[in-house]
């Protein structure tokens, strides 16, 4: 009897995370959906005019902003991250491995405000000097986010690489391939789904990052034309104006949140699906 009670209690506890997920979705959607419908989805998603005080809520330039920053980050971080994972798995001497892992853990643990701050103090002047432009740019965002997201890509790629049976590598080496050829042609294809899942999760993390981005993105509401242009990603839009927003403006920010929420949920589901597809093979 007592055991039953305990089991019941525990199952309720276990449902809290699921429950809070629904609660979050419910409240964000409740606040955000009406305004999208009122403005009209076409205007909301495909207009670049964001003038909250004149009731114009178009978030296209912010969607483009988020996408361009994410692309930039992936272009920089995937080669670095997967490279780091390969290094850890196959080439690093023990000492280096013992050093690199805590380093990555700490990089992950450093608060995002600190990254943003370092970006403003160090990176922005550098970009101004060497590339021109205002400094606050897609490039600055991508570099800061690359450093932040690197540990995630490394750890997930490493897991995927280490899950490949050792015999694959040995077999390839025995056939006369160099170690690099074996890794490139045999190990990486075999670990592909795990790495892909990691990259997709990293993508979700990049899109959702706020504090570091708001400090280095420049936040202008305009379609970017080059990587040296300033952008306002979706998260920055929320954080920037939430403090001031009331009424419809606030609802529009929640609507921005709805877009963000949906995109990230989709990415999470895809990542799960991709990871699973690798396991069953």
């Amino acid at each position, binding site marked *: 009897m*007592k055991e039953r009670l305990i089991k019941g209690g525990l199952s309720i506890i276990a449902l809290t995370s699921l429950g*809070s997920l629904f609660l979050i979705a419910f409240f964000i959607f409740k606040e955000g959906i009406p305004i999208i419908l009122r403005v009209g989805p076409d205007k909301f998603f495909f207009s670049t005019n964001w003038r909250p005080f004149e009731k114009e809520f178009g978030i296209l330039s912010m969607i483009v902003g988020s996408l361009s920053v994410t692309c930039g980050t992936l272009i920089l971080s995937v080669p670095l991250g997967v490279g780091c994972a*390969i290094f850890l798995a196959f080439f690093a001497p023990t000492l280096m491995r013992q050093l690199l892992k805590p380093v990555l853990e700490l990089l992950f643990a*450093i608060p995002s405000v*600190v990254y943003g701050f370092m970006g403003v103090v160090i990176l922005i002047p550098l970009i101004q000097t060497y590339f021109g432009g205002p400094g606050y740019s897609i490039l600055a965002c991508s570099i800061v986010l690359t450093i932040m997201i690197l540990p995630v890509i490394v750890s997930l790629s490493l897991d995927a690489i280490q899950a490949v049976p050792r015999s694959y590598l040995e077999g390839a080496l025995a056939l006369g391939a*160099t170690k690099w050829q074996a890794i490139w042609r045999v190990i990486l294809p075999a670990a592909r789904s795990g790495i892909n899942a990691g990259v997709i999760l990293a993508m979700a993390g990049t899109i959702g990052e706020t504090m570091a981005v708001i400090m280095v993105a420049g936040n202008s509401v305009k379609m970017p034309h080059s990587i040296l242009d300033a952008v306002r990603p979706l998260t920055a839009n929320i954080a920037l104006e939430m403090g001031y927003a009331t009424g419809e403006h606030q609802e529009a920010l929640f609507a921005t949140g709805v877009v963000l929420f949906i995109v990230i949920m989709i990415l999470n589901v895809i990542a799960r699906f991709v990871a699973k597809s690798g396991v069953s093979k």
Partner: protein
Amino acid sequence: MRAEPTKIQRLLIFFLWSVAFFTIGILIFIIGYILIKGLSYVDLKFLLTLPEKMGKEGGVWPFIFSTLYITSVCLVISVPLGVGTAIYLSEYTREGWFNSVIRFGCDCLAGIPSIILGLFGFIFFVIYLKMGWSVLAGGLTVSLMILPFVIRSSEEAIRAVPCALREASLSLGASRWQTVMRIVLPNALPGILTGIILGIGKCVGETASLILTAGSSLRLPVSIFDSGRTLAIHFYILAREGISMEKAYATAAVLIISILVINIAAYKLMHHFVKRYKRESIFWIRLQ
């Protein structure tokens, strides 16, 4: 004409080494920069006095206190829920649809960016439940953030407890619950604690969601319904408003040191008991 495979390999290995050094260099640079710029302003007085002139002078005591306060509220909520869920998932059910639904929910919750959690916390805890900007609302919001993480690491720790121990306990006539409380949990404790400590690290560094839910009052929060400003938020405001760069660097130094201490503590704890785990580090669990 094709390049020689061994040459390519040498080139690529060189690239990998530079990536590794680059990564290490970045970390050393960030930590070094903040500590060199800030550490000289940090002393006991800075840590234990109240701020004056919006933080231009004086110390950071209220912010340290708020950080601890919000973190404790967060732990009081997320630890029982997280460990409870982990026990349920690993001890009370077999793998089935119910389990995978809960795991899926957990993964999704882990993926929600903190600004969205902040929006939710603002509209639900602050406005709807009328908590106002408060330690309670902030603590509840961050507890949602670290809950999936506590579940994950506890589950991993509980699963690492050898089955033989459970079987022995059950065969001696102990009930399932007794086995969990007396055998499984004590044995899994180091792993669970490691997860919790790393969760504390996440709380300490959190900014986006807390600005929207805990407010940014300069005062020492007395009751749980008072607004409080954490160290990370204080650093953000000092640096952004340009109130005082010296104090900003000093606050950042305190923040970085506490993050270092938290992570080293977790690392040591885990290292001590690492043999029980399949994986080499709890960290790698956290990221999934």
